[in-house]
């Protein structure tokens, strides 16, 4: 980590979907390690767009997003490398339908681990090859884990995560057999399997039946208590008040007001925020 443990630093972020459709008009936002930021705003105000810009699911049309010090809004940055460290949870869960629960959780860690292993192995092969002709032999790149170990470790971790949410017995089933709440909790641990530095949640409970909202919010709260850095778009005001370190109110493409839950809920200043709160509280 760097500069006072800043994980995300957004500067002058703009996003436009074509001419005249400017959704974000200059957002500045800093997220420190362990911080829980909740984004509020009316429907269509650009909350999802803002969140999706944070891992460049939407490519910003202006400004910078520094993640662990590197500008990921820059199109030259290898975004895949950074996304490994940014977990994202969707409103519609988006579990892989053709994979079992266990495969859903293991897929990314195994694939990324194995790809790195292969790259190193290939490099080592060429180092060995050139070493034949060299007096001063170059050192090989250390390979800590074999493919087998990578897989075994990912599986162990996947089972640990499933145990944690009490869904170990669902490891071998396909997502279509699960309830919404189960799907979303699995989607959350799937993101956790990558050991992210920050988690992004886009209305994680909006597609759930009311009786399942609690189980998902409880899991997110536990993560928050454990110190996970997170940015959450939600309409669950109780959750926002309880969990947020800071609340951001997005309106007309900018952050209209920003503050602690107490400041935002008990003493709002912006007229639009007051109006918004009067509708949702």
């Amino acid at each position, binding site marked *: 980590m760097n500069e006072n443990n800043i994980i995300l630093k957004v500067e002058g972020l703009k996003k436009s979907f074509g001419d005249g459709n400017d959704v974000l008009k200059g957002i500045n936002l800093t997220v420190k390690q362990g911080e829980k930021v909740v984004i509020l705003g009316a429907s269509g105000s650009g909350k999802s767009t803002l969140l999706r810009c944070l891992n460049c699911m939407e490519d910003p049309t202006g400004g910078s997003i520094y993640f662990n010090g590197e500008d990921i809004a820059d199109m030259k940055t290898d975004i*895949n490398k950074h996304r490994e460290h940014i977990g994202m949870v969707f409103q519609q869960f988006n579990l892989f339908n053709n994979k079992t629960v266990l495969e859903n959780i293991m897929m990314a860690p195994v694939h990324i681990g194995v790809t790195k292993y292969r790259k190193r192995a290939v490099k080592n092969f060429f180092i060995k090859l050139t070493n034949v002709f060299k007096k001063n032999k170059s050192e090989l790149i250390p390979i800590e884990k074999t493919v087998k170990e990578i897989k075994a470790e990912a599986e162990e971790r996947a089972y640990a995560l499933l145990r944690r949410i009490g869904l170990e017995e669902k490891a071998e089933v396909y997502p279509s057999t699960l309830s919404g709440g189960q799907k979303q909790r699995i989607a959350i641990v799937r993101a956790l399997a990558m050991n992210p530095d920050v988690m992004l949640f886009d209305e994680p409970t909006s597609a759930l039946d009311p009786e399942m909202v609690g189980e998902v919010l409880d899991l997110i709260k536990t993560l928050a208590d454990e110190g996970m850095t997170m940015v959450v778009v939600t309409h669950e005001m109780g959750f926002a008040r309880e969990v947020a370190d800071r609340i951001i109110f997005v309106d007309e493409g900018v952050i209209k007001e920003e503050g602690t839950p107490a400041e935002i809920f008990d003493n709002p200043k912006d007229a639009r925020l007051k109006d918004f709160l009067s509708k949702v509280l």
Partner: protein
Amino acid sequence: MNWGVKWEKFISTMEGEYFRELLLTGFLNTIKVAVLGLIIGIVIGTVIAVIKVAPKYSRINRVLDKICTVYVAIFRGTPMVVQLLLAYYVLLPMLGIKEVESIVVGIVVFGMNSGSYVSEIMRGGLNSVDKGQMEAGRALGLSYGTTMIKVVIPQAVKNILPTLGNEFITLIKETSVLSFITVYDLYTALSTIGSKNYEKMVPYLVMAAIYIVLVLLITLLVKLLENIFAKSDRARTNPKAKRA
């Protein structure tokens, strides 16, 4: 019409070792061209479909997209016979290639032709997969290609299996034009058998029967595959598994 005599004639022809082998060769060639053609078609079709649905940010993608459009227009815009004739009697001599078996030309042309049709089928399949599947993969740090191969394409294939089965059936039936480039297919074989005694009725009926049996077998195979693929949505297909 005396069917008894006609049948006798056919049987007596088939007693000749030569004609039995002819039929077997024709049958196997038909299967070979259709199966290998379909495999090549699926590979080409998938590549084209992925190029078609991929974002067109880069220059390369846009150029590839244009090439695919032209490819599909050519192969869908001309009859298979014309493609076979052009490949065998125009393209090969022009390129000075002599040492190539006609069946290889058949397989390649069938594959390329099928690729143009499969590309459209596959494109529909890819578009039928929820966009969230790709997003979830990308959000985990997987590349576009990896997510395509591991998540989107398998689901697309599942959705288009019946249509792919139809493509296979079309290919089987279209092998009858292979005779135009001297390939011994099912049609050529039975036609030759019919010429033996100037008695073509039974051979042609047998030919029709073989095609029908093949098509029914393919239909069965597709059903089987559908059931295997359906394991990922048991809840929908098997009500008992709902609360598994």
